[in-house]
Every structure is written in C-alpha cells, then in structure tokens.
C-alpha cells in the first residue's frame, strides 16, 4: 500500500509542479536557516572538556569594600571566579580540593636565537602546577612543573605543540632555553594539541574564546617576579599601586578547583563560606556571599553563548514556523483541488484512514525533499558563517547529529503541516463529488 501512496504522491507532484516546488523551496529555506543557526548554537554551547567538566568548579567570592552596594549575584555574573591575588593564594595553599590552580593570561614576547627571526608575541597563561593535570592537558615531551617550582619561582616553561613546531621544527625541545620578555625560561614540557572550545578559563581573564589555544605556560609566581603584565586588571579602589598587584585591591587572577563529586563540592562550598567568614572577621572581606558553579554552570553564568547567536536561532525557528504555515496552506489548496479524485477513491472502497495515510505520505515526501534542499541551504549557510569574522567561525561544520536532525526536523515539520490538509481530505464525502463528474 505504501508503494502505491508513493506513486500517487509522485503523480500529484507532477501535476502540480509549481505548487510542489514552492512548498519544497519554502520548507528547505526554513530548515536550512534553522540547521545553520542550530549548528552555530551547538558549537557555542558545547562542553569544552567533556571528560572533566563535571569535576571542575569555579569558586567565586565578593571582594568589594564594605561601602559597595553591588549585589553579589551581579558581581559574579561580571567577574566570575576572578579574585585578588591574596584570596587566590589562600585558596591554593589551603589544598581543600583534589586539585587547584590559579591563573591569569599574559602575552609573552618570544625572542629566538634564529637569525632573521623577528621577536613575536604569543598568547600565554601564567598559572600554578596543577593546571595541566586538572584540565586534562597531556604532554608530548616532558612534563609540567611542581608545586615546589611554583614556590621557588623557578624559571621553567611549558609550550604548546604548535609553538614547538614553529621554534624547533617539532623536535624534542626539553632543556632548551626560551627568552620570554627579558628573562630566560627552561622548557620542561611540550603539550599535545590541547585547545578546549570555548577556552573556558580565559572568558573572564580577557582572552579569546576560540581558536588554537595558548602557546606559553609559565609559573605564576616566577612571572610576577619578572613584572608580567596580565590581560585584565579590575581594581575596586582607584588609589592602588599597579606595580605591586599581589597586594593591590584588584581582581586579576582566577581560581579553578577539581572535586570528585557533589558531596565534595558541598564540602568545598562550606569551606569557601568559612574562609570568607574568617576573612570578614579579619576585616579583609566584607560580603559573605560565595558561589561554586561547575564548568557548564560557569559558562552559562558568564553568558559565553553570545545573545546574537541565540537571537538568530529564535529568528530562524520563527521563520521555519512561517514556512510550515505556508506549507499547510499550499498542501490544503492542493488537496481541496483534488476533492473529485478523493471522492472516486472513497467510492471505490478506500477508507478514511487510507485517504489520511495517502496524504500524510505525500506531506512526508515534501518534507524529505525539503530536508534535502534544507541540507544544501544549511551547507551554504555554514559556508557563509565560516567566512564571517567571528572567532568561532572556522569551526562551524555540519556533523552527523545535525545531519540527522535536518531530516528529523524536516519530517516533523512536514507531517505537522500535513495533518490539517489530510484531515480535511479524509472528510470529503464521496457522493457529492461523484454527482458533479
């Protein structure tokens, strides 16, 4: 029976070429727009570290002076886990989490001995020893530094694979010296390709969110001793000495901790509250609110997905809705025009169910054709997105799940569109139609 319905549908398409083409085109456009924006939204709201994200947490505290009237919630939305150096170091040294790291971003001027090679700036992270193990950054050569290196301000460096390729042609560069700014650092580790998308740890530190990741990783305390300039410094008092950021009333480092499960997270939050309470009693802090979102919660809090991307998706689905309404209208017009054919089929013994099925099959075929066209439009749309200036643009590709989603959305849209016309069609009474023949 299904084959017969397909045959009938094809015949009907042939008879109403323009109408069918219009329906498929409208549906294709709506689906193309929806899939394009959904792909971008999925890319932007993706999990940067699927293996570890549930275990990573961002401790947030309010460092503002007593006179401040800013709500802690608003402050956390703006600053996230940014902290003063003092608070970050206190949390680091408390060792209350399985792993903890403090970090800031700073671009470093790399000078090489290679003749003719001009100095260049590379994106860098100044951080503490747990960074690599906590964020799942694996080593191609060597390893990271130790907590002892942090305290000793040892001048050692970990570099990304792509910087190693650029500087040393991809060979094992462990032990080589690298001039960063005005100081020499000994390379002790080379990372395998590692670039979480988005680069979650940089969103509130002033770095790029997407792209090929950072190139240089230096011990935080050694870099401070060398007078590093970090990307972002937010001071809550204008009378500060920026040259001694360690003691300044400014937030400029962020802290991340790794906790095994929810009960550990609860315990850590209690510790964080107690820490703040203790600092309040010492007169250093003044506001008791704390927060401890996990990685995905942190990304939502920091509104990492741009409003424009979500707005575009809403708009595309609004457009798809218009296309579906449009298809309902055209399908209805087509099926009402065929009242006589339906009457004949009904008179010859087709049940209402059979008529209904026949028209749903026809809508489904419009849907599949619309899906194929939508796929072409989506590929075109994504091609256009890849040529946009946004930093995530290059990553916009259709994957298997979105490929499947295209046809699912197309079928659902067309079947919904087909319901009303099919229902109208199966209500057609055979007698009056036959009389007028």
């Amino acid at each position, binding site marked *: 029976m299904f084959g017969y319905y397909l045959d009938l549908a094809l015949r009907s398409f042939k008879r109403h070429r323009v109408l069918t083409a*219009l329906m498929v085109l409208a549906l294709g456009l709506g689906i193309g727009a929806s899939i394009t924006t959904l792909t971008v939204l999925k890319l932007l709201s993706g999990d940067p570290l699927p293996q570890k994200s549930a275990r990573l947490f961002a401790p947030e505290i309010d460092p503002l002076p007593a006179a401040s009237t800013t709500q802690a919630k608003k402050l956390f939305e703006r600053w996230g886990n940014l902290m003063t150096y003092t608070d970050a170091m206190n949390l680091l040294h408390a060792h209350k989490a399985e792993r903890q790291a403090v970090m800031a971003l700073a671009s470093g001027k790399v000078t090489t001995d290679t003749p003719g090679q001009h100095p260049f700036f590379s994106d860098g992270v100044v951080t503490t020893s747990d960074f690599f193990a906590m964020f799942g950054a694996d080593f191609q050569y060597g390893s990271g530094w130790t907590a002892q290196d942090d305290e000793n301000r040892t001048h050692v460096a970990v570099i990304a694979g792509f910087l190693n390729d650029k500087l040393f042609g991809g060979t094992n560069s462990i032990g080589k010296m690298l001039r960063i700014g005005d100081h020499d650092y000994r390379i002790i580790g080379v990372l395998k390709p590692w670039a979480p998308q988005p680069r979650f740890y940089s969103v509130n530190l002033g770095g790029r969110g997407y792209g090929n990741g950072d190139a240089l990783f230096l011990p935080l305390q050694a870099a401070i001793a060398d007078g590093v300039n970090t990307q972002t410094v937010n001071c809550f008092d204008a009378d500060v000495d*920026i040259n001694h950021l360690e003691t300044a009333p400014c937030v400029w480092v962020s802290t991340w901790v790794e906790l095994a499960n929810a009960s550990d997270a609860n315990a850590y939050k209690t510790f964080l509250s107690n820490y703040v309470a203790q600092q309040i009693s010492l007169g250093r802090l003044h506001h008791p609110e704390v927060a401890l979102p996990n990685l995905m919660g942190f990304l939502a809090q920091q509104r990492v997905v741009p*409003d424009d991307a979500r707005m575009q998706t809403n708009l595309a689905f609004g*457009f798809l809705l218009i*296309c579906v*309404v449009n298809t309902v209208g*055209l399908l*209805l*017009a087509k099926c009402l025009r065929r009242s006589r054919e339906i009457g004949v089929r009904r008179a010859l013994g087709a049940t209402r169910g059979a008529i209904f099925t026949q028209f749903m099959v026809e809508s489904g075929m419009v849907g599949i054709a619309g899906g194929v066209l939508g796929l072409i439009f989506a590929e075109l749309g994504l091609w256009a997105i890849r040529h946009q*200036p946004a930093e995530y643009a290059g990553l916009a590709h259709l994957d298997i799940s979105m490929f499947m989603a295209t046809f699912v959305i197309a079928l659902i849209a067309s079947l919904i569109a087909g319901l009303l016309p099919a229902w109208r069609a199966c209500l057609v009474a055979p007698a009056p139609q036959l009389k007028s023949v």
Partner: protein
Amino acid sequence: MDIQPILTALRKHKIPAALIVLEIALACAVLCNAVFMINQRIGEIRLPNAIDESGLSIIDVQGIDPKTASGDLQRDLAALRELPGVTAAAALNMMPLGNNSWNSNVATSPDGIMAKDSPNVAEYMFTQGGPEALGMRLLQGRFFNDDEYADSKLGDSYLPSTHVVIVTKSLAERLWPEQSALGKQIWVGKKNIYNVVGIVADVLRPDNNGGGIAHFHWSMFFPISPALAIQEFVVRSAPGDRARIVRDGAQKLEALSPSVVVEGHTFSEIRDKYFANTRSMVGMLVLVCVVMLAVTAFGIVGLTSFWVGQRRRQIGIRRAVGATRAHIMQYFQTENFLLSSAGVAVGMILAFGINLYLMQHYQTTRLPWYYLPVSAIALWVLGQLAVLGPALRAANVPPVVATRDG
C-alpha cells in the same frame, strides 16, 4: 466596494483564510522585531565619533624595554613626524574602538565613587599634540598647555599626576546635568582630583564596557608625558597617504629598535574590525526578512490562485451578469486587504509579545510604536503585490465559462 459578499465567501473558506491571516501575522511580528534589531545595530555603527577618522593611522609598539621606554617613545614619535605627509602625531594609551581599554568609575564628590550609579568612564591619556593628531573638536574651554603635558607623569595606579581633564559633551551632561562643566571637579578614587578645563564633541570609547550605546560616549582625556604603557602612536595625514604611512612607519620603528614588535593599522581597519560582528548580524537579519517576505508572498499567491481556480465558474457568472474586469480585480484585492488587515492586527499584538520576551531575556529596549504601522503598511503592500497576478488571471476569466459545465 461592498464587502458583505466577500465576508460571506470567506466564511465558506475559513481554514485557508485563517492560514493567510496567520502567515501575515507571523510575518508582521517577526518583521517588526527584526527591523528594530537591524536599526539598533545600524544606530550603533553610525554613532558619531568626533575625531578625524578618515585621516588617522595607528601604530602600536609592543615589547619596549621598560628602562629606556620614555626616551624610545620620544625618538619614535620624532621619527613618525618626519614621514612625508604626516601632519601631526602623538602617543596615547588607547584608541576609540581599539582592543585596549582603560576605564575608571568617577564621581563629582569624594564619596560618590561607591555609589551604585557612579559612571564608568574611559580614560584617554595622550602626549603633547594629541588633540591635533586625533582631530578632536573643542566645544568649550581649552586644550592642555605645554606645562601640563610635561608635568603629568603616569602614577603607580595608572592615573596621571596632572590636575586637569577634558571631558566629552555626553559625560559633562551625565555628571553635571543642566550646568556648565567647566571648572568643576572629577574624583577618581579619594585622592585623585581633576579640574575640567575643556569640553569636546563626543569621542567613542575603546568599547562600551557592557554599558550599551548610552555609555559609549563617556570619555575623558588627560595630558601625559611619554612613558611605558603610553605606546600607541596616532598619526594624522591625508586619507590617501595612510596605507603608505602605516607601512613605512612600522618599518622605521622596527629599524630603530629591532627588539620591539610593531603593528600598524588605518583607523578604518580598526573600525571595520570592531563592528564586523555587528555588520554580519545586520546582514543575516536583512536576509531573513527578505526571504521571509518572499515566502509569505508566495504563500499568498498559491492560496489565492487556488481560490481563483475554484471560483472560475462563479467569476464567469458574475462577468455574464455584467461585472467588469475591474470589479473582479477589486474583489480579490479587497479580499486580500481584509485578510491582511486581520493578519496585521494579530501581528502587532504578537510583535509586542515577542518584544516583551526579548526584553526579558536579552539586552533589548521597548519596541517604538511606529514600527507597528510601518510593518503593517509593508505587509499590506506585499499582500496587494502578491494578489495582483491571481487577480489578473481571475479578471481574464471569460463570461462564457458560466455556460459551461463544472
């Protein structure tokens, strides 16, 4: 035109009529909000910026040796001024729409800083010749004098040691509404007090710092003597000379100190980069609007054609009993007008609802009322254009059809 027969006929086709109304309503709602978003973004791109945008080039120097910075910067500046075609040059800490931004909360009294609404203001600092190099427009008061540049050092808190400041008109109006700002004092923190000596036409900040369009002109300017961190050079020339000046200037500075990293851009490039995402969003919105209107128009064409086909017989009868072609045309045009009007009425309510939703979830303001009648007119026109073809075909139905069967 009597609309009674049209309404009677529509009552027989409730579902197709409802579909057209729904489609027009959705299109109207989306159109209102999309056009509003487009206009908001174009408004942002077109914000006035009272500097000589078309004559500016920026050369940015990174990696200067801190020990010799002050002397190096003066030497670099002199070298840039010698380039043929350069009419003025100065060093400054940041550029409007640039990727570097210094901001402070300011107040008009020592205790005002902690107030929740103390405005966050961009702090520009430039060396001697800054106003001329940027092409700033003085509205009241004066620019800085030579002593003020020479005496102003960059302090440990990255604030200048001077006691003078120039503010933009928008900032002056924000801080001292309805008063003259000249001679008033600005507090940055409790110890840093600056006297307003001049008011300039609005200059954009490096970015709006999360404050939206309303805060984009809150800028203040300080004199400063050459120092590390004041390491962007702005160079003014004729527009046609900029590409050459950027190239030659960067080469010259790199030759002077091989250890620094120099990057040069024309201001147009900086502007394009800043607004690139905004412009692509505008492009996408325009595209969706156009395609959506086309789909809606084709939907109307499809459904009306179907109606015309169904009513050939009735049209023939009307023609046979004396209706002219114009009557038949008018019939379909009026019918479409009625459907569009119903659609637009529903659409306006929907548009308002969507706007409320967007205001809750995104940084959007209230939809100004005049968007509603404007999109209503757009959809009426669209409906009339879409119905023209089928209506013409209806008008061409010959009266003889009435005598035929079926």
